[in-house]
């Protein structure tokens, strides 16, 4: 099989019906055959862009996106070590995300996690009902660049502020960008609690994260509205 065929196979596996094992097998094969890993990542990224566009057009739905995102994560786990070994490419930024305390809603959070993965971020999803201190512990553990806090309930909104307040009290505010989102979260609220960013939807959240990372500014920054 030619190099182009293998890369096409990877593309198809990522957006098609292939299972996780099959994607991992293709990725391992690419590495074993000495295929240019950066070229493989370009193909994988293009596949993710394609499925993101299909989701935007409602040609596929959230589960398809989540499955593709999980395949991408597994594929990157195999390819990533070889990027760092073979090139000076910058490691992807890390995002720790979750739905804050008292809130069990996960659709928006899962969508953002997937869109960030699709956009090339390394994502640690803490799930729902996550206490403020757990976000900070996880950010430290995963060496995060960004904390992404989701909330759909009015009474869980205060926990977004509490994460930021805790970071400040612990002298760690400048270590992480903090972005917030969810149904009742408005740009005004984001500004009011001192978040670094707010985005209206999952696709814009990925752009927001990219913008924050590329800015190189030290948090806290003036709130960026995507």
């Amino acid at each position, binding site marked *: 099989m030619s190099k182009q065929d293998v890369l096409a196979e990877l593309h198809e596996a990522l957006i098609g019906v292939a299972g996780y094992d099959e994607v991992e097998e293709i990725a391992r094969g690419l590495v074993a055959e000495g295929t240019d890993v950066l070229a493989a990542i370009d193909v994988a990224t293009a596949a993710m862009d394609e499925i993101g566009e299909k989701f935007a057009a409602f040609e596929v*739905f959230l589960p*398809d996106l989540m499955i593709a995102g999980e395949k991408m994560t597994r594929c990157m786990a195999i390819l990533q070590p070889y990027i760092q070994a073979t090139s000076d490419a910058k490691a992807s930024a890390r995002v720790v995300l979750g739905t804050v305390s*008292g809130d069990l809603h*996960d*659709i928006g959070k899962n969508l953002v996690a997937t869109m960030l993965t699709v956009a090339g971020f390394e994502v640690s999803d803490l799930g*729902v009902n996550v206490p403020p201190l757990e976000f900070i512990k996880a950010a430290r553990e995963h060496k995060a660049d960004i904390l992404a806090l989701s909330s759909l309930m009015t*009474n*869980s909104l205060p926990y977004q502020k509490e994460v930021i307040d805790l970071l400040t009290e612990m002298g760690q505010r400048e270590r992480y960008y903090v972005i917030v989102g969810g*149904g009742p979260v408005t740009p005004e609220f984001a500004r009011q609690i001192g978040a670094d960013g707010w985005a209206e939807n999952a696709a814009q959240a990925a752009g927001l994260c990219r913008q924050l990372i590329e800015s190189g500014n030290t948090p806290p920054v003036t709130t960026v509205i995507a």
Partner: protein
Amino acid sequence: MALDRDRLMQLLDRAHTGPVCEQFEWDTRVIPGTIAKNLKKYDLLKTCDPKNPINQDDDLADRFFQAGMDTAVEAGLLCIDTQRRIQYNREEIKAGLEAAPSEFTLGEGKEVATFKYRDVEDPTLPVWISPLSIAMTEDLFIPMVEGIARVPEVDVLEGPSVETLWGSTIRAGSPYELLVGRWQAEANHEALRRAGREGMGMFATGTSPTQYGVLGGYGLPGGFKPERDIVLVLSPVEMKTSYENLLKLSQAYNCDGTVYAGSWSMIGGYAGGPEGATVSCIACTLLMYTGYQASNGASFPFDMRYMGNCGRDALWALGTVFQALSRNTHLCVNSVLNQTAGPATEMLLYESAVGMMNLAVSGATSCTGTRSAGGKYTNYLSPLEIKFAGEVFKQCAGMTRAQANEVANKLLPLYEAQLGHPPKGQSFAECYDVETLTPTDEWQAIYDKVKDEVIKAGMPLR
């Protein structure tokens, strides 16, 4: 309907002994796979008809019901705290539905509201529950509830929710919520007294999304009264339950109370497009009435693209869900209508008109709303849109679906292009005199104009 102990214990035991299923597997394989299989089995793929947003095809509604029943049997509910599936066989679900009431009451004295099963195109008056749990500042909470209770079309009180308690921020899942359980009941009682509507039934507890508002307010002195008020149990999406839900049910059992069970399915989410969301809503409703022993409630569709259900796809799905349930059960099903525009806008009233009319002709026993401004902004709610929505809901009872579809097609072009970017409108204090509880002239004029327009479009309002 008080909860049966054996059925409650069966639910709890199954939540701890059912087959293990991790949530990712549930969300990405079990739910979409089961729904896709049943859409195909009953020939339901691509049946959504946005040009006719109010379904009029009985056979289609019945096939959706069968697909929903099969999905309920094959999938069950996932308990997210134990990561186990709670499964019921077909006979158990049928028995659960059979045991659910076709009629029950909330409230007391002259404020008793009777919930009755309604058929499709049924002239029986539906029940209007207001408002949704939209956040209010503490100073405006009682005036808002009083203003809502003064609306004669309102039968039962659910929200709003309050942002602070004695000046302190209320945090979900914390002791503040336990305290606000009783606070909200007392504040509601005071507002109802001022409005002269003591005795109106209430939901416990709009402010508190977790179990604490129920534990702190339902069946306690000064709190919500089990003999006249109902416990609000909202299930996580998609077809999930949780300890929060199970704790609320347990408290309802301890108090001999009744249960409202609600959930939703997002169009574009785990269930897929409008057809998938329709199946999911039906399946989830059947499981909640079986497992939670609900007297009222249902799962309803929501469109992820604009976070509401007043656009064409969502209206079609909403109507089909309620027609399927109405034609195949005797349940007292309730929907939530999710508007996107804010108070003092024409768009909010047009969204309400089409959505409420759809529910009135599709067999809903009751509806909860309004979700003014999508529920996004504190104090963005007013009694006038609640009055308008209630008038539409009740006065459209008895219309045919064909008539309603014709009216919907006249009104939808007036707002559907703005669904992604709805106007925020005005806050309560901006569009109302909060002392006299009367709308501003501007807001009243908007109401009068839209009412004229919907009457001209064929809606039988007085």
